[in-house]
């Protein structure tokens, strides 16, 4: 049955259905619908909900529950996620599975409460210290928010690694029909590494501290090996008409919805615009971008930032074709017209974009 929910509520319900029974949060706009939903639902399913005294306390509580083998989650928005960075580094260093939702708002600093994608670097490159990675998933609809949050708990457990859901104020607060079409998880397998009391078995250790010389380097090598496996197996993306296009748009989340409008519209007028939408921001879909860059005229990256993901696009393209950028900052959301104008500017002979621009100007 379809339900009309906000992205925030969808994330919360999907977590519950994925077997998450430990949620710790601290209020911040624009993700309050998530914490509010959890405060009602967690007691209903016999789980634990705590409105912590701070963001740092919340991420540390996640650390505790994850170490004890539970499916744990926290959520916040940009300034609050900054506060959680120490905890995220410790979770990655302790190889603890958990899910962190960032419903991004405008920054830097306290910024504002409107939609933004300016936390890409922080999410993907690691906002905390040390050589670590978090798996980063970027939904672009309320349905996909539910699906990705559900999957994120499995990914976290599979690799014993934190997973971040990177949304924004628009995805968080937008209401769309969605369906929870996966089975609610019951009787999750026990985690044999977790801290459950060592009576009758060898003790387990969960730590990120390796003071003996050489041990830490060995542990880092183990982490890097794990990250390589993730990069090889967990890349997700959506590709639209990449074989016919002269220009490829690369965008994720909210920006991708608007790019998709440009791609779909241009199909009516001798279609020559395609699109790649990264669903995993780390691991980044560099292979498909590299392949496409070998035959297209150029790539245009669209973000609600001053240009962050575009750096990863350039690393994937490695100079095979020009990589352009269009971005809005501080709560600005690109419009389809702005993107069409940018396409005409960089590829003046793109017929589809030209036709679309002419139509828009007549109107």
């Amino acid at each position, binding site marked *: 049955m*379809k339900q*009309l929910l906000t992205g925030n509520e969808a994330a919360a319900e999907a977590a519950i259905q994925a077997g998450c029974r430990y949620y710790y949060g601290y209020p911040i706009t624009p993700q309050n619908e998530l914490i509010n939903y959890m405060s009602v639902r967690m007691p209903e399913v016999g789980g634990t909900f705590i409105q912590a005294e701070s963001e740092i306390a919340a991420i540390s509580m996640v650390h505790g529950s994850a170490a004890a083998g539970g499916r744990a989650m926290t959520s916040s928005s940009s300034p609050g996620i900054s506060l959680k960075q120490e905890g995220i580094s410790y979770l990655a260093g302790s190889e603890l599975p958990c899910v962190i939702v960032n419903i991004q708002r405008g920054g830097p600093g306290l910024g*504002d*409460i409107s939609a933004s994608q300016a936390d890409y670097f922080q999410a993907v490159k690691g906002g905390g210290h040390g050589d670590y990675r978090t798996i980063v998933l970027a939904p672009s609809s309320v349905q996909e928010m539910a699906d990705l949050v559900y999957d994120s708990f499995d990914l976290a457990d599979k690799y014993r690694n934190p997973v971040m859901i990177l949304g924004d104020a*628009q995805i968080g*607060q*937008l*209401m*769309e*029909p969605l369906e929870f079409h996966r089975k609610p998880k019951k009787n999750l397998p026990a985690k044999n590494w977790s801290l459950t009391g060592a009576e009758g078995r060898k003790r387990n250790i969960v730590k990120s501290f390796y003071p003996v010389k050489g041990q830490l380097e060995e542990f880092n090598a183990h982490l890097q090996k794990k990250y390589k496996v993730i990069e090889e197996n967990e890349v997700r993306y959506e590709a639209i008409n990449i074989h016919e296009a002269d220009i490829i748009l690369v965008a994720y989340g909210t920006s991708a*919805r*608007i790019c*998709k*409008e440009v791609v*779909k519209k241009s199909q009516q007028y001798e279609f020559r615009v395609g699109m790649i939408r990264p669903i995993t921001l780390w691991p980044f879909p560099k292979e498909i971008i590299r392949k496409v860059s070998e035959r297209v005229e150029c790539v245009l990256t669209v973000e609600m930032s001053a240009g962050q993901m575009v750096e990863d696009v350039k690393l994937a393209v490695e100079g095979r074709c020009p990589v352009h950028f269009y971005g809005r900052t501080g709560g600005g*959301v690109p*419009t*389809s017209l702005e993107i069409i104008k940018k396409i005409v500017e960089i590829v003046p002979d793109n017929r589809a974009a030209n036709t679309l621009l002419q139509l828009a100007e007549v109107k």
Partner: protein
Amino acid sequence: MTEKIILAGFGGQGMMLLGKLLAQAAMADGKYVTYFPSYGTEVRGGTAVYYLIISNEEIFSPLIEEADTLIVMNQPSYQKYKDMLKPDGLLVLNSSMIKLNNLSDVKTYQVPATEIASKLGNVLVSNIVMLGAYLAIKKLFSASLILDQLQAMLKGKKGNLLTINKQALDSGMQVIKTIS
């Protein structure tokens, strides 16, 4: 068919609920729908605005640059959003709280929603009066589809509110019949 509606009023006038009822009816009707609230860091009594898009096709951006319909409850909201209505758009306004100096080209329906709701005995149903009016003008859905949503929403302790909401919906529809 794509209908882009901007709903605006001051916080507490029930614009959120009005839009949600329409969105749920659209969903029940098998339509694509996006419903996006836009709240700023505004003070109490400031304007609250909601963007509702109902379509037979996939909806990309949930934001509205040019609205087909503007449903507006108070003077500040009218001033703020009137220019976002397309030239041949539909304006449904709460005439109890909005005074028009000069009528523009847009198709305008003046519904004394606050007054009607007060007469029914609860000023809080003025949003449902507006909803009734909108339904009678645009006929996107049958009133029964909206009533289903109201019924699902007003259960248990809120059950006694169903009657007045039904009356409000009906009054809104009647107003349009008398005007047109």
